[in-house]
């Protein structure tokens, strides 16, 4: 069964240098009419506070539009960055795709 939400994969690095492009990529998906967005973090090796800021901006934009953002699959160091900064509770963070899908299937 196809997911009712779109998924964008984050790969490599999410920092002050690469964050702008990733934000544009996600915004173009959102602007195409997507309300619920999943971001697959399993290929993300590195995130800085500038990368966190991009995720927060996207979450705010989706929430304003009545949509939701689900993050999933973070590697351990990235997950620790979420935990330390409070992003684990601030945003919807899940261990894997299925958990994110289960969350987004509820209204």
């Amino acid at each position, binding site marked *: 069964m196809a997911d009712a939400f779109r998924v964008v994969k984050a790969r490599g*690095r999410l*920092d*002050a*240098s*690469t964050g702008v492009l990733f934000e544009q990529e996600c915004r173009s998906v959102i602007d195409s009419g997507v309300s619920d967005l999943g971001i697959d973090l399993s290929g993300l*090796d*590195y*995130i*800085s*506070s*500038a990368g*966190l*800021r991009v995720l*927060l*901006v996207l*979450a*705010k934009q989706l*929430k304003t539009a009545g949509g939701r953002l689900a993050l999933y699959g973070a*590697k*351990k*160091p*990235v997950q*620790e*960055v979420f935990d*330390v*900064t*409070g992003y684990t509770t*601030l*945003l919807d963070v899940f261990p894997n795709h299925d958990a994110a899908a289960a969350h987004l299937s509820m209204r």
Partner: protein
Amino acid sequence: MTTPFTAEIRAEPIAISALTEQAMEYLGGAGVDARATHHVALVIDEMLTNVVSHGAAPGGTVGVKIDILPDRVKAEILDPGLPFDPRAAPVPDLETDVENRAIGGVGLLLVRTLTCELDYERSGDRNRTRFAVARAST
């Protein structure tokens, strides 16, 4: 004994990104665990990005040195920015929800939380920040 990593770069985002990537390759290649590898790069990134945002001497260069010890990774950052003590700056309120959460401000929180040592001194017209991140015991 691994040779220390040293670099001198211009304080600008693309150079900082390249430097942190090189630092991770260096640490990972030397067998440092994924957590320490990520967090050493992150602390350097946050400190240098802060110099760019708030304290940069235009066109100034920053120096970074990384040393691998058996139980931790030590690093030193020399920058020509305005005096800035990362131990003293305020950190954001974490108890707010998505709409009210201030964008940004978490960089320093990461620096203070993920390091096991954090020292600062003003050295002439430069900031000298020294920090360490614990390695996983094997």
